[in-house]
Structure formats: structure tokens, C-alpha cells
């Protein structure tokens, strides 16, 4: 982090829903008031946000942008099947521990110097501080790192639905009390600044009620045409107004079709950039045909759309 740059005052940024929205906007994240409300509440209630929604609507981006906005470090934990506490919470530095045993063995003579008999040796050993399970040998993983970050942090637990159910229970302590219990050491609590936690889920599996209860629940749907246009304007500022309207209308039209995977915002943005590269001025059927693979990721879908391309384009142009 850049020490010289003045730190924005979070209290000022998050004074109201509107100021949150404006602050996100300056970071080029255009959002509905619902999303801004979520960030605002999460900050004031000190609660994690569980963000759900179809892929590509900016769930992860929200966490990243919030971190940028508040100028806090972003700590990210990508979930996957088989993720366990050793990778998410903490791990002992076992190599170092092994070395410690070696050293201890060598030094044993010195430590026990002068002790006569077993009893005396053992009591001498007891006097010797036990650092085997201490913080020096602790390797913090994302969750613990987020807790110990002095000035606060933004913790992103991405795609929590991909992790196993057991992992959710592991999160419970962390999310409700902002603390982690390590049996050998004790409980580690968050400092003065609690981390702001975002969990994202694509809903491949129902998240347990216990976890949902502890979170604010934010559902981000596909944006309406107006909002999507603003997003495109923020992300691809050079795009001609005419093209932007047509492009958004076309994508909105596609979302109403029965496709395997409908294009999300990220795809709309990619498409807008592609069209910019091709120096297009307006949307035409041939142009769409050539670039369709940017927004549609399945051959089946591409074929479905190509078959009806002219009628869809016609409708989109009318709408735009």
C-alpha cells in the first residue's frame, strides 16, 4: 500500500447510502441503490454480506471495488471442493517445527545442565518456555490474516457454494464473532477494525440456514437496460452512444431467450470492447454474427441465436 497517499476517511465515504453509491461510482462500479444499501448496512452493522446472483453480474467485482474505495487490503479466499482449515484458516509451519525439535535435542544438554535425576530434569524442562505451539510457528491463511490486519481489511470469500458443507460451519465462528479459535493457542479476535466480509455464491448448492442467518443477503440480478448502459459507459467510455444503446438492447433481448448460458454484464463489456477494436459504429447482423462467440459460450446457443439473428436484431434496434 502506498503510505504517502492520504487515506480516505471511511466514515465519510459510508455516511449515507448515496455517498456509498457515489464513491463506488468514482471507482467505476455503477450499481443500484440496493447494492449501495448493502455495503452501507454491512459497514454499520458489522455484518458480512452474502452476494448471490447469476455469474458475471459483478459479485466479485463489488468486493474488489469496495476494497479500492476504502483503500483497504483485499484478502481473497477462493473456495473449491476439499478446501479445509489448513488452507483457509491457519497452518503450523511444520518444517520450522521440525527444525526446532532438532535444535532442542542438541541444546538439551545445555538446558538440563546440572539437573540431577529424572525429576529435576523434567521440572527444568517445564520451566523452559513452550514455544512449540506459539504464534511464531503459525502460518496465517486468508481468514486469520484478515482478522489480524491492523487497519481493517476487505475479506472476499469467493464462490462459497463450491466448498463443502463442513467448510461453512468453519466460517460460522469467524463470521458471527470475528474470532478464530486455535486449540493450542486460544482465541484470536479481530482488532479494532473488523474486516468487511463479502461471500459470493452462484447458487450451485443451497447455502445452509446457519450461514445465511449471519449474513446480509444481497441478490444481484441482471441489470435493467438503463443501468447496463451506464455500466458500459463507465467501463468502455469511448464507445459511441448509438452503438452502446443498440448493444445493450441486443444483450437484453438475448437474456429473454432460452439459452444455456445467457450473457452477463462481463460479457457485454467484453463485447463492447471487441466492437471498439473493430471500429464499429453501429450494430449490424453480419457484425453480430462474427462476434457472437464473445457473448455466447456454447455452440448450441450460438446456433440458436444465429437462426433467429435477423428478428432479434430487428427487435433490439427498435428497442434501442
Amino acid at each position, binding site marked *: 500500500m502506498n503510505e504517502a497517499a492520504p487515506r480516505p476517511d471511511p466514515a465519510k465515504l459510508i455516511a449515507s447510502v448515496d455517498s456509498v453509491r457515489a464513491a463506488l461510482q468514482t471507482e467505476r462500479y455503477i450499481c443500484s441503490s440496493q447494492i449501495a444499501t448493502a455495503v452501507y448496512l454491512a459497514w454499520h*452493522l458489522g455484518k458480512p454480506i452474502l452476494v448471490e446472483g447469476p455469474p458475471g453480474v459483478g459479485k466479485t467485482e463489488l468486493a474488489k471495488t469496495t476494497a479500492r474505495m476504502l483503500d483497504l487490503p483485499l484478502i481473497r479466499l477462493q473456495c473449491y471442493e*476439499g478446501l479445509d482449515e489448513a488452507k483457509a484458516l491457519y497452518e503450523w509451519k511444520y518444517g520450522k517445527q521440525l527444525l526446532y525439535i532438532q535444535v532442542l535435542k542438541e541444546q538439551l544438554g545445555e538446558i538440563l545442565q546440572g539437573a540431577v535425576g529424572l525429576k529435576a530434569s523434567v521440572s527444568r524442562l517445564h520451566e523452559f518456555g513452550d514455544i512449540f505451539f506459539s504464534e511464531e510457528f503459525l502460518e496465517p491463511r486468508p481468514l486469520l490474516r484478515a482478522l489480524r490486519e491492523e487497519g481493517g481489511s476487505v475479506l472476499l470469500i469467493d464462490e462459497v457454494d463450491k466448498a463443502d458443507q463442513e467448510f461453512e460451519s468453519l466460517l460460522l465462528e469467524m463470521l458471527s464473532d470475528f474470532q478464530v479459535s486455535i486449540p493450542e493457542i486460544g482465541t484470536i479476535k479481530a482488532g479494532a477494525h473488523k474486516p468487511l466480509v463479502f461471500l459470493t455464491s452462484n447458487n450451485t448448492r443451497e447455502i445452509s*440456514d446457519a450461514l445465511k*442467518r449471519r449474513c446480509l443477503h444481497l*441478490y444481484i440480478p441482471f441489470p435493467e437496460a438503463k443501468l447496463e448502459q451506464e455500466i458500459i459507459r463507465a467501463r468502455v467510455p469511448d464507445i459511441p452512444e448509438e452503438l452502446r444503446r443498440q448493444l445493450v438492447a441486443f444483450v437484453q433481448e438475448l437474456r429473454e431467450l432460452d439459452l444455456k448460458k445467457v450473457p452477463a454484464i462481463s460479457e457485454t463489456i467484453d463485447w463492447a470492447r471487441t466492437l471498439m477494436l473493430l471500429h464499429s459504429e453501429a450494430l449490424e447482423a453480419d457484425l453480430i454474427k462474427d462476434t457472437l462467440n464473445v457473448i455466447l459460450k456454447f455452440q448450441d446457443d450460438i446456433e440458436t441465436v444465429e437462426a433467429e439473428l435477423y428478428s432479434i436484431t430487428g427487435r433490439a434496434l427498435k428497442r434501442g
Partner: protein
Amino acid sequence: MERTLANFIRALRMADVRVSTSETLDAFRTAEITGWRDRTALKEALALTLPKTADEKDAYDACFEQFFRFDDFRSEAAEADSQQDESEQESSPQSGDGEPGAEGQAQGDGGGGQSSGSDVEELEELIQPGEMSEARSELGQMLMGGDASQLSLAIANAARETKLEEIKVFTQKGLFTRRIMEAMGLAELQQELEELGASNTLPEQRLNAELRRRRDGLREQIRDYVERQFLLHADARGDRLREEMLRKVKLSNVEVRNFRHLRMLVQKMAKQLATAHSRRRKVTKRGQLNVPKMLRRNMRHGGEMVELAWKSTKIDRPKVYAICDVSGSMTTYARFMLMLLYSLEEVLPNVRAFAFSSDLGEVTDLFRREDIDDAIAMTLKDFGGGSTDYGQAFEDFERLAGRDLDHRSTLIILGDARNNYGQAQTELLRGFRDRSKRVIWLNPEPEMAWGSGDSEMRRYQAHVHQANVCNSLVHLERVVSGLLRAVS
């Protein structure tokens, strides 16, 4: 305001939004932060704390709109214009359900519910607008004041006093309307009206007419309010009752109009079961060693490797095969059996579904592709209606999937075992049993009927691990829960 929010949460619960105590506390804190002034802000903020699924969000939206509707009391001018409408509404048949008593009581001065409208009109016609005297009673002053929000608040307060949230059946609507009127000080107003009526001065006559008109408007408004609260509080309870009933009734007796509810119930059940029984992971006992874990575990043995720890964990994915009888004798049940099959597909990762009456075919792909209604309809069309032949079905199954059965698979047979005196082929069933982990037979017939007539159930029963009666949702739930425990 706290009471209001608590009542709102109660209404939400009625609408099937699960709100826990801790979420209730969150809601209070949220409301404190956002304040009560901005309705949209409050709605959006509470939408983050209370509902936690897409379905619940929809229910929440509807509930919020109904619960917090404060656009009630029309402004003075608008009201004067709509006076005619109001008197018409007054005499509309809608006021007939159990309210004549309320009307009579409220009128006090002998005019029945029907006549009140024309009464006012007459008065209005007689008296030209002009100077008017001040109302004396509290309610009268409030009515003349024309402050819409004050009146709305007063109604809400009176409703709370009369415990409106406990309204149960629609016939109580009139009763509660009257009680709320009385709580707001109707008696005093009535007294004043009578005195005004006796007076001869014009300003007092004018006041009399105006007050009567507004009182009637107020009653209309309260009735709307009661109606809304009734929808919020009591209607949902009706839903719950119906659900309760649907769970217990025999599946073959469910009326067609309740199919939709039943399907929702089955899906809800499937979902709950899915969360309750997640797949399990086992640590395998071969492969690579997990050195860090082993070191730590063996620390207590002085660093000597006594206990081993393994790296790879194995995820147990149960395999389920389901065979469903959709023949003529099963028509009433087949739909529900298929519904169950379809829901199982959603719950368990590896389900292969088969359907048969005489010939058996696999419908797994169909189920994956189509939505539940289409899938069931297509299955019934392709396989349904024929006469049952279990022997043939078992042979087909052996041919199609027999080789895939192994010690991890569970085979579920949904059928009544009525074989039209055909070949039973019990040895094939025995073979399935020997090869798979578990064979479960779900029969919609009561156990008494097993083995009677052409039912081969008694014979088949000997060759399966488990045979259950299954003809209502309660049965289904019990069986499926046991099933999930067995397969996972």
C-alpha cells in the same frame, strides 16, 4: 414503531419467510440505522436482513407493499369530489358480509347502512357551503383537521389496541371494523352528531353534514385496512392449514386444483432433505501421506511416526437407480411417484430414472432436460397406460443398467407389484439385491393389500432390503429421509 416491525415480521413468517430471532434483532438495528422516514430505503435495507432466498424476496416485496401502505386518507379536496362515490360504496353489497350489526351500531341515529348515503346527500343539498362551526369531540377534530397521516396513525394505533393481528376468519371483519371505530372515539362523535342534528343554526348543520360524510369515509377506510390486515395475517394461515392437510391426505385423493401446491411441497421437501443430508467425505487409506498432519499428530509420540495420516479424501457419491411403474393400475400414483423421482434427481447427484408399464426405458435425460411438468407428461405418454409386466421390466433393467449396479448403488422401485399374473422373475430381483448396496421397494398400497389378488408384493418383499408403504407426503418424507441416510 417496534411493535409495528414485530408485527411485520409476524406477517412475513406467515408468508413463509423464515425469520429467526437473531434476524429480528438485525432488522431492529437496521431500522434504527436507516430510520423510518424513507420508505424505499427502509424497504431495501430490510430486504437485505430478512429474506434470504429469491422466493423469500418475492414474498417479502409483496408483504412489505401490503403492510406499509400509508396512502390511505384522501386529501380534503379529493374527498369532497368523491363524496358521491363513497355513498355508493357504502351501499354496495360488499358491506353485506356480517356487517349489518356494525352498521346499525355505528349509525346510532336509526338510519340503516343503506340509508346513510342518501341521508348525507339530502343534507348536503339542503345546506349551501359557508361558515361552519368547530368540531368538539376529539375524533371530530381529527376528521376535520384532514391530516391524512395523523388519521392513518390513529387507525393503526386503534387496530393495535383491538389486537387486529389476531383476526382469523373473514366473518370477523365487520366486528373488527366496529371495534376500531369505537377505539378511535366513535361514541363521542356520535353524541356530538346528535346534538348538532338537534341544533338549528346553519354553521352547525353544515358541520353535521360534513362530519357525517367524513365519518363514513373513515369507516370505509378502516374496512380497507381490516381487509388488508386480514389478507396479511389470516390468509397465510389458511395456506399453512392446507399444506398440513395435503401432507396427510392420500396422494390418490388429492384434487387436481391442489396439484400445484403439492408439487411445491414435494420440491420443498426435497430441498430440505438435500441440505440435511449433504454428501460425505471419507479419508482414503492409501495414496500419498499427509506429512504436516502426520508430524503434528505424532508430536506426542516424540516425533516417531506411529500414526499415519493420508492426503487424499474421497467423496462418496451415492448412485441411485429408480424404477417407476406407470402402468394403468398405478395411474393415480404414477404422477406423484414421478414427481418424487424428479425431485430426487435434483437432490442427489447421480440418479438414473427408469419408467415402465410393460417395457422399460430410461428417462434420466428427459428429466434433466425438461421441467417437471413436461417431463412427467412425456414419461406418462411414452411409457404409461399399458398393462404391467414386472418380469419384462426387470429383464429390460438388467439389460440396460444391470452391469452398472455395484456395492455403492441403491435401487428404488416405485410400484404396486400387481403383475397381472405374469412371470414374477424374482431371481432377477434377487440378483439386483446381491449386487447393490440396498434395494428399496415403495408401494402405494396399504400393507393389508400386499399379496392379495395379482399382487406379487409378498414374494418380492423377500428379495429386497426394505419395503415400505408410501402413499402420502408424510410417508414420502419419512422414506426419502431414511433413503438419503442410507445412500449417503
